[in-house]
């Protein structure tokens, strides 16, 4: 039995020992925003916040999150409003197919907590563990800069 606070709501479920956090979120809790993109912790599509810090939820057992708080893309916006990072991804066309986007957004949220005014180069470094095949990363970097309140060069 694990008890995990997910997006502010307490969840308690009996799951097999080997259940990964990403599958707990997707299959047990039913929040499918968090994606599985690889099997080697390389792509970052499954990135969520665990007690406020970004983790790859394919590499965390649900049991390891017992008693802790998880935030997924579904829990970012407050009262129906977009989180500044979500708003910026849309405004800057920081997504195309959208599959990497939830993980990318969560990694960006985590980055901006640690470094509220990053340079474009710092954003690239911080997002190295999150892969995107569509955007060439250019507009993802622009979105993070935008979300940080800094002007975005064309």
């Amino acid at each position: 039995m694990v008890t995990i606070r997910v997006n502010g709501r307490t969840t308690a479920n009996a799951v097999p020992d080997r259940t990964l956090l990403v599958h707990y979120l997707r299959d047990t809790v039913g929040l499918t925003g968090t994606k599985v993109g690889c099997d080697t912790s390389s792509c970052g599509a499954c990135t969520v916040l665990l007690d406020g810090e970004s983790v790859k939820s394919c590499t965390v057992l649900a049991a390891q999150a017992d008693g802790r708080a998880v935030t997924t893309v579904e829990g970012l916006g407050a009262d129906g409003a977009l989180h500044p990072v979500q708003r910026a991804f849309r405004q800057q066309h920081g997504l195309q197919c959208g599959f990497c986007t939830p993980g990318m957004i969560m990694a960006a949220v985590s980055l901006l907590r640690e470094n509220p005014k990053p340079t474009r180069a710092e954003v690239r470094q911080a997002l190295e563990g999150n892969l995107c095949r569509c955007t060439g990363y250019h507009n993802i970097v622009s979105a993070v800069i935008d979300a940080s309140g800094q002007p975005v060069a064309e």
Partner: protein
Amino acid sequence: MSLLGTKVVRTEDLRLITSGGVYVDDLREPMLAGAAHAVFVRSVVAHARIGSVDVSAASKAPGVVGVFTAADLDLAPASDEPTAEPWLAGDVVRYVGEPIALVLTEERYQLADAAELVDVDYDPLPAVIGFDSALAGDPLLFAGTDSNVFRTNGAPLDESTFRDYEVVVTCRTVNQRVAPSPMEARGASCVWGADGRLVMWLSTQNAQIARTTLAKRLDVDPALVRVVTPDVGGGFGAKIGAHPEAVVLAWAARRTGRAVRWMESRSENLTAMTHGRGQRQTVTVAGRRDGTVAALRLDIEQDLGAYPRAPHLPGLTEMMASGVYRVPRVETSAVMVLTNTVPIAAYRGAGRPEAAAAVERAMDVFAAEIGMDPVEVRKRNFIRPQEFPYRTPNGTEYDTGEYEAALDRALAAADYSALRAEQARRRAAGDVVALGIGISTYVEITGDGSGESGRVDVNRDGSVTAYTGSSPHGQGIATTLAMLLSDRLGIPMARITVRHGDTDEVPKGIGTFGSRSLQLGGSAIRLAADQVIERARILAADLLEASPTDVELDVDRGVWQVRGAASAGSVAWQQIAEREPLSEDVWFGDGASTFPFGAHIAVVDVDTATGKVVLRRMIAADDAGPVLNPVAFRGQRHGGLAQGVAQAMLEEVGYDTDGNPVTATLADYSFITATELPDFELVESVTPTTRNLLGVKGIGEAATIGSTPAVQNAVVDALAHLGVRHVDMPTTPMRVWRAINEAGGAIG
């Protein structure tokens, strides 16, 4: 003011950024409740006879619903050719990753446990890996054939015909095998309803083609198959139609009477989804010392992989062999070989990147041979604007082009002369970090003559629902089509819904590949909208008590009125639709291929001590005609650039000599990341085509095609002063370091 050409954020995004959308593995459809989970047991040997497949232990594993092998399948073979691809391998396996059995279990986590218990007895055969091994012809991949050469195009080179030119250069290049690797791997869910109909949710680029394939293979009436594309997490050409796995899943769902869900792992995706490229090329360029090219010959060896899924690809390379140049004599040939590797199929550009890479590399070799700047050589040989439409000697009909103007814009943005001065300064100073400037001027083929469907309904409440056969999976075409309709009909985008990807809603369609969606799908929607307008004109005239020839649509206000008498009253779309719902369903079949073009300039630093290449700048002028939504247009170019750079610098699918994949995970495959790319510098250029209603060409693949040779040329250019004339892709530190050492060693 027209919306067209203005930046419009995408209507697709809100769902994706708040709930993550609904991809095939996210489906919680009631019809899929209690679905069995599926996994394919795949060959771990590249080439072997299968002695036996023992499923007895697997069948007893916890949660197993069924284990199926070739012996269980009662599907007709895909073809009666000796090279037919089996649905599941029964007698021989021909690549690591080839499906041998299908395992169904109640729970997802039970799949791996059960699959591991399927015992396959392999009797290994020597693996055929690489062109030389394939051409040697021993062993043969297929009984009933006498060679591993599947097909040849054209005649071999007659060297005597290349003797009488002032300059002849020959360039041997490898256009390596790469993995499309969409972020969402392949997936499908399916169920046969009580009504005898199959519903398959499939991560595909074309629901309608998938439906046709499934119906044919399962031997059922197409009306009994519904294919639905949920959100699709990228395709890049590798998700065209229904793959064999989808057919087997539908068969298993029928056999077991269960709903079935399948989501492949990334390792499966890298070792069993089709790869792209896979050519070895010999390019011969002949001409004069004044820079004029007189003849070009491209000889292609195409690795098809284990099964010939896409033998049309080298033909596309041949069509585009002479690129943007006016070359009086153009010859091509292709030899297609079968090897014990994953089948090759389309990947962003599909045959055209290989052509651009060959001709653009060869032009640089030619320029080096005669001691001329690569820009100057290109300018001497461009097809001139007044020569369009232009027919190449090998029969390709280009529509429009402004090749030199595009290059000039890119050169200005790059400040080319300053870059050359910086390069000279570094060389004079003996700088260990060499500067390279790479030029690529490209043209490619987009769209085709097969057309696309479009339907536009004006509903009773005055809102619009449009249906397109295009099948976007990241391109933002729903937004662009809504812009087009809003502009044409004067109805706000918020009242326009674009539907796609469900064969019940859109029975006819071709889908999204080959950069065809806007030029064909967009033209179809435009045609349907125009027919709606003509029908509405008659109804509006009746309501306004005027002649149809006297009424007009005021698109700024979105109302119909009597021309020149706006004050006399107007009729809204809603009033017309209340009178008679409007619906026009068309097929735009008048399109023909279009030829977008551009000029890319790459600037690299190469550490001559270590071979490490850093891409400093990427300047891209891409011309695909008028731009409807600059947001999407620029986004397509960004993504294309990244994938092109990835092939030039980083990515390569590898096999060892026994046919074992050595890039089977994202930890091993050098998928390009944010840190390896600079901010892109985009330069605008607009040359319309005459070949469709919108004047547009495709932009989905263009930047991939242009960027690869620009980067490769930049790396070679950086090392030119060290005597390096060519470096194959990807330009990894090891390969660059070797090239430097073979040429005589690094600086310092």
